[in-house]
């Protein structure tokens, strides 16, 4: 049973108080209202953008309102005439009331101001969050406000409230970037400040600005109105402007710490951890197996999506802060006692997931260079190995690796490139944009088809035997399971097969004992999801080697977190993670008001015949003016929550 005393969350009033307005009424269930716990912890009272939730009937609503208003004031940008001044005015009225000079009329005035700001605020913070819950407080807790004069001393008392801020886009972003914040800085023509804000949580802004899967854009409040903000491209513009303007350096640490930290793998996770630890003053060494840094961003994502000078520049900045990267230095066995003897105080494993998984068909076990793993194919290309184009190549898989292989093959001069995927287009994990571009570039797609055997003639691949599939019940991933159609076998002629059916981490560096303690049944490293710590004290892990193949921004996020967590570990503090808004629908808000429609900014794409001449970047970016214009579309949907 939910024991809430009062909730006005999302405008739904639930009043279980035994005194006051709802006295004597039957207790209503709080179903669909606010979760009883916040991030796994109970709370006494909470005020958030979408209402007021009181668990403990003795909670001080007036003090809570004040605490909320103080936080709201800091978030109000102050650009429009109603929001910030409205907050100031309400605070002043409350102060007047506390001094015993207020009455009923003052509450009426507060109500009028709140409604005015909600209807006429410039941004969505003003309309949805700045003052909205105050309306519920003065309406349903009138007596508490009118009793203020007797409580003047209490009113001024400092109370311990916690607060958290998010936005629909921020909440969707794995790294919780302050998206409205950096967009606002772009809007105000402050590209450098914007970039600095991005770098706080995303140290590869140019890379992410090009290759992020941008789930934030799906959460954008404008999505169903006139189209999401081009959040990814705005981030790219901050990075591009900085590069064009001479490239700024990263801040170097203010104090040096003597503790040494070893990081294994210079992918996004390793780099992010290195940056933050170095910024805190730690001595950081990254051991990297390859001659290049960037992990899959260096040896996976192709040049036409991510020009390598962008990545290299961003890696260089991290190196220039004093992070040492030892290239061509694979850690074959992670000998933790030895590393400790060498003076390392903590280690962070970020080895990614580089081993291709098998297709699971006949003839695959025979080693030959016309049947290759997708990730390996891409890695070889990136490391400068010459590919020998053949007439026809079949790529098995439906993810980004398959698409990247296919679009690379087209550019390398393979005549016919065909992707074979066992489910339908709707289930395809590869990004919709990528699929569209691949079709543009003449990649052929065959759906609902699964390979069963590789056909060889005189030792050379001649074809691949396949079966037709139909879709059955959804599987654990929620996607419909492909079911073979009996008797539908056929052979697809091909000279080469690329298997892009997934990757898993290579954990040969762990000892057998560590493998038992530290790994999951999926062959990934087991960690505490918040602190990135493993079963072995001092060893942390993050990125694809923990999550399995995921995304750049998730890897960066784990690097960010691991750095904080390692710092807490070394300083003997408890690690405090950001609040997770679990169970709270951050897209919800009361009336949105009218949003004048504007068009989303568009960028140029390279013509197909130009693309196929080489590996030039396909997608263009915003120039400064276009970025500022797009940034003006941001509604700034900050959501604030204050609780006790």
């Amino acid at each position, binding site marked *: 049973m939910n024991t809430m005393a009062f909730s006005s969350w999302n405008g739904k009033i639930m009043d279980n108080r035994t005194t006051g307005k709802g006295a004597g009424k039957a207790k209503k269930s709080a179903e669909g209202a606010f979760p009883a716990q916040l991030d796994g912890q109970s709370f006494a009272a909470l005020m958030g953008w979408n209402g007021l939730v009181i668990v403990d009937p003795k909670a001080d609503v007036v003090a809570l309102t004040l605490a909320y208003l103080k936080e709201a004031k*800091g*978030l*109000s*940008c*102050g*650009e*429009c*005439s*109603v929001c*910030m*001044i*409205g907050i*100031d*005015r309400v605070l002043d009225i409350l102060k007047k009331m506390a001094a015993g000079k207020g009455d009923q009329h003052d509450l009426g005035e507060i109500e*009028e*101001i709140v409604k*005015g700001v909600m*209807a*006429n*605020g*410039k941004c969505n913070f003003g309309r949805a969050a700045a003052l909205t819950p105050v309306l519920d407080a003065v309406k349903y807790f009138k007596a508490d406000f009118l009793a203020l004069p007797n409580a003047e001393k209490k009113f001024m008392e400092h109370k311990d409230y916690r607060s958290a*801020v998010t936005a629909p886009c921020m909440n969707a972003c794995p790294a919780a970037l*302050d998206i*409205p*914040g950096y967009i*606002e800085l772009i809007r*105000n*023509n*402050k590209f450098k400040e914007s970039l600095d*804000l991005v770098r706080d949580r995303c140290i590869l802004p140019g890379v992410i600005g090009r290759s992020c899967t941008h789930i934030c854009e799906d959460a954008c409040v404008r999505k169903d109105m006139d189209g999401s903000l081009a959040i990814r491209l705005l981030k790219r513009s901050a990075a591009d402007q900085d590069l064009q303007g001479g490239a700024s350096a990263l801040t170097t640490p203010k104090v040096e710490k003597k503790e040494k930290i070893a990081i294994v793998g210079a992918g996004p996770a390793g780099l992010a951890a290195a940056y933050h630890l170095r910024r805190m003053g730690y001595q950081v060494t990254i051991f990297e197996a390859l001659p290049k840094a960037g992990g899959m961003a260096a040896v996976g994502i192709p040049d036409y999506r991510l020009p390598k000078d962008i990545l290299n520049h961003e890696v260089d900045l991290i190196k220039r802060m004093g992070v040492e990267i030892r290239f061509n230095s694979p850690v074959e066995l992670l000998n933790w006692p030895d590393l400790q003897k060498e003076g390392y105080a903590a280690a962070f494993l970020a080895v990614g997931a580089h081993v291709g998984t098998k297709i699971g068909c006949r003839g695959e076990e025979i080693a030959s260079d016309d049947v290759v793993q997708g990730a390996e194919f891409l890695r070889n290309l990136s490391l400068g190995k010459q590919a020998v184009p053949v007439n026809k190549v079949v790529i098995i898989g439906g993810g980004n690796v398959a698409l990247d292989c296919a679009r690379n093959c087209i550019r390398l001069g393979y005549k016919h490139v065909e992707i074979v995927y066992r489910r339908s287009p709707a289930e395809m994990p590869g990004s919709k944009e990528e699929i569209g571009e691949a079709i543009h570039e003449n990649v052929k797609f065959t759906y609902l088809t699964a390979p069963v055997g590789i056909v060889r003639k005189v030792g050379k691949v001649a074809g691949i035997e396949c079966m037709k599939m139909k879709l059955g019940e959804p599987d654990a991933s929620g996607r419909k399971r492909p079911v073979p159609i009996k008797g539908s076998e056929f052979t697809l002629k091909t000279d080469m097969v690329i298997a892009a059916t997934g990757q898993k981490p290579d954990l040969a560096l762990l000892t057998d004992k560590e493998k038992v303690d530290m790994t999951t049944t999926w062959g990934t490293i087991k960690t505490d999801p918040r602190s990135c710590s493993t079963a072995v004290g001092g060893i942390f892990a993050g990125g694809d080697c923990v999550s399995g193949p995921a995304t750049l921004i998730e890897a960066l996020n784990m690097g960010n977190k691991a750095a904080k967590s390692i710092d807490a570990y070394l300083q003997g503090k408890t690690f405090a993670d950001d609040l997770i808004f679990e169970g709270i629908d951050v897209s919800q808000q009361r009336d949105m*008001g*009218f949003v*004048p*429609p*504007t068009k989303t900014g568009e960028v140029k794409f390279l013509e197909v015949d130009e693309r196929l001449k080489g590996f030039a970047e396909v997608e263009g970016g915003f120039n400064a003016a276009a970025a500022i214009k797009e940034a*003006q579309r941001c509604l700034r949907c*900050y959501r604030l929550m204050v609780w006790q």
Partner: protein
Amino acid sequence: MVNISINGQKIRAKEGANVLQEAKDLRIDIPTLCYHNDLTTFGACRLCTVEVKTDGAWKLAASCQTEVAEGMEVLTDSDKVKESRKLAAALLYYKYPGTQAIRDVAEKLGVEVVPTETDSRDCILCGLCTRTCHEIVRADALKFQDRGLGRSLEEPKIEFISPACIGCGSCAYVCSTGFVRMEAVDGKRMIWDKVFKMAVCNNCGRYFAPVEQLEFISRTTGVPVSNLMTCVSCR
């Protein structure tokens, strides 16, 4: 062209035009403090509100930021509109009681304004100067410094980037409250906190423009400074 109606009057408006401009063309009085015909709209003062009918419901909208659309219905004088403008004006007056431009609008919109001796000419953050400097002058010497998550700024304000300023005075000209002041004494111009040396016209010998402005024009147009040393009246 699109068909819209303003207060019941049917008109044809140019595509992409904003409702405020269309209403102004019909000589309908809509109060504004942050609008200028030659600049992008900013929607800061919240005084230009109108009611717009969308999806069958009337909603408040800042007319300067609302583009006309086929079939759009607009009300510029409804009770809701008046109420909303009055509240915005009352808040502005609450914050800037000594600024004449604000007192005038507030009074006009029905806010009770008490007499005062002060003439404080506050910056009301309308953004006219920043937009002029960025969009027209292209010097980018003025930028908004606003608050937000993780930024600890007590009062939002306009940041003056001294090295970028060319002393053209456009911001003082466009300022709606007289906050930006420009003064001239003995061949010098003072604006914000910067002092500019004025150039003398080769022809009439009068001071006519800051040297830095001429240098800026020369840099952006490629015309040598020596060719720019004549004032407008003598050209």
